């Protein structure tokens, strides 16, 4: 026993937890730089490309909320992402609703879907949870394939971007860009806040020791379900936005490969880190568009990155950097 306490160590409770001042300045600097880059990006890079990165980054953040902070690996997140894309596209194209309403509808759909999935899947943990979400999302895939309104393998094409609040023309790619950036920032802020909220604390506790959390009076299933619904809604937000960016909703976004891709992004960037998914998404999207022009077989490269990440690089890029530079 005595062997464990280093008596020289003069730890006191006041320095026990995080040091809010220092931490938040550092966060503020990183976020500030990130924001500057994001604001300038469309003048340097191809705007649609950056928008795609943002959509996937938001998707990955949503996914990360679940795996990184609630310890639940969903292998069916494509259902929310792609499902919302269809709803948004349909609302905008067929019902002629405005972009903001369409996206909200898509998001609402994902939230409901998340509630349904969650109610079924939350009862199991770990691999079981992953398998169940995967199977459920396959169901959504087949429905998307067979239902009339989704347009089968053609998807919903030529979705109008419309006018934001009826005023701002989103066909202008810069307005569209800043709209997407705003959506992303809102989503990101929600994730950030949720993680560092009273709710986030309980979620962590549940991940660590569920029976104990129950014995303290937490109805853990409800917390997990809320986390799931939150994550699904944000994934839907990302999917709906993407549908407007590309003006199309297609089957690609509901396949299980898409669910795998978001796992890869999060893993590569760093699970359970806030910026990790953003970095991961940027890398994967860049890589995919780069590989498209080479003769390298894309799945092999993506698969290899997966394997390398799992074997030697589990903390992901951001996780690795944080470990190196001593941040918790």
């Amino acid at each position: 026993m005595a062997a464990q306490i280093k008596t020289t160590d003069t730890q006191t409770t006041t320095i026990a937890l995080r040091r809010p001042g220092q931490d938040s300045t550092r966060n503020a600097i990183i976020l500030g730089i990130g924001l500057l880059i994001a604001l300038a990006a469309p003048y340097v890079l191809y705007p649609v490309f950056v928008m795609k990165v943002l959509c996937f980054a938001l998707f990955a953040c949503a996914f990360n909320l679940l795996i990184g902070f609630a310890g639940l690996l969903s292998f069916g997140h494509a259902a929310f992402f792609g499902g919302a894309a269809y709803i948004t596209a349909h609302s905008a194209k067929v019902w002629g609703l405005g972009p903001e309403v369409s996206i909200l509808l898509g998001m609402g759909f994902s939230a409901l879907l998340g509630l349904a999935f969650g109610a079924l899947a939350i009862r199991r943990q770990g691999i079981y949870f992953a398998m169940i979400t995967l199977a459920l999302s396959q169901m959504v895939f087949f429905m998307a394939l067979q239902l009339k309104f989704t347009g089968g393998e053609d998807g919903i094409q030529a979705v109008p971007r419309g006018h934001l609040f009826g005023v701002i023309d989103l066909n202008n790619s810069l307005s569209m860009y800043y709209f997407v950036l705003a959506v992303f920032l809102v989503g990101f802020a929600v994730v950030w806040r949720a993680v560092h909220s009273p709710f986030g604390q309980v979620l962590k506790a549940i991940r660590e020791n569920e029976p104990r959390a129950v014995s303290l009076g937490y109805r853990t299933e409800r917390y997990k379900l809320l986390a799931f619904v939150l994550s699904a809604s944000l994934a839907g937000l990302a999917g709906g936005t993407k549908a407007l960016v590309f003006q199309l909703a297609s089957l690609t976004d509901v396949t299980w490969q898409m669910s795998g891709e978001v796992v890869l992004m999060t893993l590569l960037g760093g699970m359970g880190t806030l910026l990790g998914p953003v970095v991961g998404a940027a890398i994967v999207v860049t890589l995919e568009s780069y590989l498209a022009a080479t003769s390298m077989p894309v799945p092999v490269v993506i698969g290899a990155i997966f394997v390398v990440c799992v074997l030697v690089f589990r903390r992901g890029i951001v996780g690795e950097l944080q470990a190196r530079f001593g941040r918790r």
Partner: protein
Amino acid sequence: MPDGATVKTAMLEIRDLQAFYGESHVLHGVNIDVRQGEVVTLLGRNGAGKTTTMRSIMGIVGKRNGSIRFQGKELIGMAQHKIPRLGIGYVPEERGIFSSLSVDENLMLPPVVKSGGMTVPQIYELFPNLQGRGTTQGTRLSGGEQQMLAIARILRTGADLILLDEPTEGLAPVIIEQIGVAVRKLKQRGFTIVLVEQNFRFAATIADRHYVMEEGHVVDMIPNDQLAQNMDKLHTYLGV
């Protein structure tokens, strides 16, 4: 040390044992001798390194140096799964009952390594609680029953050196007495037993000698018959 290790054959000789968990150096040169047919206890506070000593013998700590000889064979460097086959049985502190196995399967799991182990009826006689529970899932047994099962399954294997890590933890006094009886019986049958105990009153009723450990060292060895004289010393060691 005031023992005549040469009088009887030394069954287990530990010399200058160092053990590590990753970076942390836990054992700093442990020396222990156990002779054939003896019951030896390791006493010491939480974290003194008792469990680690046992795990070192079984080859399941991260890294170990020094020498551990069992019946003349060096265990350090030997493949892990060969060590028990030499006739060493281990009952871990956390009991290690398998939840995916029934009580019967748990009992029958460790392979018999030597003849002369106890039979199942003999085991039931020793631990009546286990009788009739064969199909229950292992970890559904109560804490104490699990402890009994953990000991019982090693007795079946015929191992002649048995390492018991805190066999009385969480047991009712009456069961502790039973286990004491069992250990004495095993001793009579010629088993050699190394026992980790916090409960030295219990240890005193069954052991021949006591090693006292502190922060990864053996700091003392007290033969059981000199226990009375050394009571004060022991109290300071153990902080009773």
